[in-house]
């Protein structure tokens, strides 16, 4: 019985532009190996370690008051940062996609800035501005306003490092949509706000959602910048990542992994939503002409 190789079964027209099967499988193997070593194994290890002392211990760790307040603080921070960055991201991407103005490239650079600065430096930046010896330090102290080592500082630092996510997702989407639809809306009598609400937002909703979940994932997982500005006060200014670090330096080997498993679950959830969104946008693009 004759058995043809898979590559021979491909028609000649396909073959001329396709890599040989060997190259294809080699590349896939490399990508898989990379993912397994650097992604899958560590995440699986988190769960293995988290449950290494049994399920009861796992739930006890999570129920500790300090851990619960860390979870609350993380959720609160994300609940403030993400909407702020949505507003900023939408405004900035609108301006960039629709208008020509001086300083446009400066704004674009500024938006990318948090990606290039080390998070620790970002945190330090806020200390230098709002810390006791900082630029606004004396002014804030005399008014009894606490930013560093308190919630406002954590929110500021987290907002800064998650600045780019929403804007960077929206800019290409808005540019691709073009302004024809918005101009038509205006000829039909729609004001600027009505145009934005009825036409612009619906056309970018998937890109916006994607930017939001990325922003959220980073906001909840931020360590460096928050570590610098928070002061690590257990029960008050510890976020989940900070709590994990603290537990790691203590005696219970399973505890930090138990808390870390929460972030791992968040990562998996983010990934699942992202895959869904990518599928959704691709489906839409295939249907459009």
């Amino acid at each position, binding site marked *: 019985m004759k058995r043809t190789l898979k590559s021979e079964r491909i028609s000649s027209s396909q073959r001329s532009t396709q890599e040989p099967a060997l190259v294809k499988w080699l590349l896939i193997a490399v990508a898989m190996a990379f993912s397994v070593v650097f992604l899958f194994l560590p995440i699986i290890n988190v769960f293995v370690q988290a449950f290494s002392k049994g399920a009861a211990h796992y739930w006890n760790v999570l129920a500790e008051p300090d851990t619960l307040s860390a979870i609350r603080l993380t959720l609160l921070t994300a609940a403030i940062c993400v909407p702020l960055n949505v507003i900023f991201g939408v405004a900035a991407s609108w301006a960039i996609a629709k208008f020509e103005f001086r300083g446009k490239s400066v704004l674009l650079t500024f938006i990318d800035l948090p990606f290039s600065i080390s998070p620790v430096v970002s945190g330090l930046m806020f200390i230098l501005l709002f810390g006791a010896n900082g630029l606004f330090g004396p002014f804030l102290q005399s008014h009894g306003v606490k930013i560093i080592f308190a919630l406002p500082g954590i929110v500021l630092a987290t907002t800064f490092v998650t600045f780019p996510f929403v804007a960077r997702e929206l800019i290409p989407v808005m540019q691709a949509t*073009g302004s*024809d*639809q918005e*101009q*038509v*809306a*205006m*000829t*039909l*009598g*729609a*004001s600027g706000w*009505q145009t934005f609400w*009825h*036409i612009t937002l*619906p*056309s970018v*909703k998937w890109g916006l959602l994607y930017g939001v979940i990325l922003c959220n994932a980073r906001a909840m997982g931020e360590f460096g910048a928050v570590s610098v500005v928070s002061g690590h006060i257990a029960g008050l200014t510890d976020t989940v990542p900070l709590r994990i670090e603290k537990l790691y330096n203590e005696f219970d080997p399973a505890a930090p992994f138990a808390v870390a498993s929460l972030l791992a679950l968040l990562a998996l959830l983010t990934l699942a939503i992202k895959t869904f969104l990518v599928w959704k946008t691709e489906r*839409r693009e295939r*249907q*459009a*002409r």
Partner: protein
Amino acid sequence: MSIEVSKISKQFGNVPAVNDINFSVGDGELVALLGPSGCGKTTVLRMIGGLEMPTEGDIFIRGQRVNDVPVQKRNIGFVFQSYALFNSMTVFKNIAFGLKIKKWRKADIQDRVEDLVRLLELQGLEKRYPHQLSGGQRQRIAIARALAAKPDVLLLDEPFGAVDAKIRQELRQWLVNLHHDLKVTTLFVTHDQEEAMEVSDRIVIFSKGRLEQMGTPREVYEQPANEFVARFVGVMNILEMEVRDGRARLNELEFPAHGLADGQKIRIGFRPYSVSISTILGEYPFQAILRHTYFLGVMLRLELVLPSGLIVRSRISKEDYTRLGLTDGCKVSFQIRSYRVLSKEGEQMGDEVATSYESTLSIGEGI
């Protein structure tokens, strides 16, 4: 609603897009803005619509100056070349959008949209989304949407640009019929001179930001104001000739040149239909060989080559072609029944309307 455009200019930064445009459109007219790419015709359309502001000059709609009236309040309907349908809305919602903004009552919106759906043959598509429809359907929706709120003026930017040639023919006829029924003052931009000629009541021809000529299709075809218009609209034979002894001459060709000074160089143009052909070599004053025949349906275009290498394009009906027994390569004699002087040496081209000399030749008067 009548439109008047007076001394309109538009600059984008340092780039002059449009310069000193003056024309008016009567109530209910269907006018084409015609010209090659980049000539400024779309800019003029957008200024009338309010999507661009003129740098200089005034625009009047219904006798009122509208320069300061924002686009939302001009009560115009605009159809983009890309149709720009709202992708996240159904066909019904697209058409109803303008009415919703204007706060019409729900029942009135329903009635109006149903009327338009019927008028534009979109029945059954109301709940579909734009990405599920063909190009022709999308275009009709774009027009329905523009007409929904009963605009004073309908503006179309290259409405047939994105469609197949065959469909384009049908859509042209359909637009003429629609305009006939609705009688809305309509302006449309096109680069296709055939389309402008077939569809519009009058044509405004642009080139490089300037208005070259405005007139009925017949006027711009038979009496082009300058060489640009003559070349752009239809096929034109253009020759550079020199006047000697009272006749315009170029190689073998010579015609009477009334009122032109000796020694003057002129550019003349004549349409293919002005050329008469005969297989009897003595019948007409000029000889040529029929090099190539182009089959264009009812008419055939003939390419005649003179002994000096000059090429003249003529036109003939299928019947005459067969009757004369013409074939590629056969010898013919021909005459040119009339020509226009497009420009004289030393004059600027395009700024002035060149005078035309309708000249019938003394031998073999026009058959």
